[in-house]
């Protein structure tokens, strides 16, 4: 096992992928706890589709993919959150609308310009090879910022996630913190998309939280356990993908799935034992 690690880390592109993947997995799962509990999982999924559309357009226009995608997806997060808070328009319907439209536009742009090539495949399913050096710097910077903001606002994020009405009534700016969560999520999604692909990125957000919630019963323990699970699954996933030449994103998701089942079975066993 150790030899494998040493061998892996002799490749610069894998080192880059591991650094970025580690940080992005961490950020995504932290935000995931709040998103899952707020019943906003679908927003993560919707945003990843918007991300696909904007990546396609960025490629067609020869722009740096992240610099276009981040503002576009942040804007979409802004929209989605405001619409889902307004109960008159069905939030989930709007998510579906936005995500399918983005994919459609993305596919159109691709077919008119470059055609369906490997780049497009990478957007959909992810690839650790897709990351350039400048991507790495940007990703590291942004994920550190997301992580620090999450830690600083941890207590407030708990408050608005647990009981938004109380938070608002007692002078916490709930709308602001909701927005913050959405914006950080948007950033995490765009960063993670290069590695995981548009189709799989939302699993990085929701899986660790769902898995942790099988067993842990306080917010703090769920957050910490999610972080550990997310990083663990990422590391195992990337080693497997290296050893067996499987797609990285899919490998990570499958490890997450296995861990989810282990926790799920364990929680049943545990409950019966008590």
């Amino acid at each position, binding site marked *: 096992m150790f030899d494998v690690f040493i061998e892996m880390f002799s490749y610069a592109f894998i080192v880059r992928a591991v650094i970025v993947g580690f940080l992005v997995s961490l950020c995504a799962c932290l935000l995931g706890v709040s998103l899952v*509990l707020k019943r906003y999982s679908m927003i993560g999924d919707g945003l990843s589709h918007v991300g696909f559309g904007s990546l396609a357009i960025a490629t067609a226009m020869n722009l740096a993919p992240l610099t276009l995608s981040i503002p576009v997806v942040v804007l979409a997060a802004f929209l989605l959150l405001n619409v889902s808070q307004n109960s008159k328009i069905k939030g989930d319907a709007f998510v579906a609308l936005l995500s399918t439209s983005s994919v459609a536009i993305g596919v159109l742009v691709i077919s008119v310009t470059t055609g369906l090539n490997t780049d497009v495949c990478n957007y959909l399913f992810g690839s650790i090879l897709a990351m350039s050096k400048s991507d790495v710097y940007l990703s590291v910077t942004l994920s550190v910022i997301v992580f620090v903001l999450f830690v600083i*606002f941890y207590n407030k994020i708990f408050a608005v996630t647990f009981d938004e009405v109380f938070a608002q*009534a*007692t002078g*916490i700016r709930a709308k602001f913190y909701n927005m913050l969560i959405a914006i950080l999520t948007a950033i995490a999604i765009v960063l993670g998309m290069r590695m995981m692909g548009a189709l799989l990125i939302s699993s990085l957000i929701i899986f660790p939280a769902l898995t942790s919630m099988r067993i842990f*019963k306080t*917010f703090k323990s769920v957050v910490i356990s999610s972080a550990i699970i997310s990083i663990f699954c990422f590391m195992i996933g990337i080693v497997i993908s290296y050893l067996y030449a499987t797609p990285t994103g899919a490998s990570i998701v499958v490890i997450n799935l296995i861990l989810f089942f282990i926790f799920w079975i364990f929680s049943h066993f545990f409950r019966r034992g008590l």
Partner: protein
Amino acid sequence: MALIKCGGASFEFDLRLVLKDINFEVLQGDYICIVGDNGSGKTTLLKGLLKIKRPCKGEIVFGDGLELSDIGYLPQSAIVQKDFPASVNEVVLSGRLNSRGLMPFYRKIDREIADENMELLSVINLKRKCFRELSGGQQQRVLLARALCAAKRLLVLDEPVAGLDPLALNELYKIIKDINEKKGIAVVMVSHDIKNAVRDASRILQVQTRQVFWGKAQDYINSYEGKRLMQVLKDENGGVNV
């Protein structure tokens, strides 16, 4: 000057007026009880006071330097999801957040105050328990402890005694009265428990889409509406005793 002045406030849902022209004020150290039938608009009025819902007419203004962050609130039914992982300690502590301002973390004093309030509501032994696994009455007490943590000048309670056993109920009235008298925190409480409300409160507001009564608790007892409600209660009790 009043902490909150409610001047001719009206509220509507989907263009349906549910409260019309409400006029009253909350003074420093007041103990106001809001009564009224189911659906009469009490919860809506509280949400108006807390600026969660805007009045469609009239105004609700804070005075005397009152801020939302001076207020503790107990919602009628907190919409807490069934699977939410949160310990009692985490929930109660979150009541201290509005005192922290921009500071990110709790200090020792916050933990002490949270502990005090948990002790006051006898949930200190549940501190490490998972909130969702408590009984309804226990959850109510935890949320009350959270409200007390948040209250510095005003405590807004929406049916605080709902779901409490008789012993806890009497204890709670004592706690609220204590907080009101010793700490000078104003209380605005919605309650269906007219008898206790009239005993403890200094003033009563009765609503029934419009404002039916606003005045001293003593006057309320002698008013037509007050007498009618008290009579209903007496008849009920008589029926049980016989």
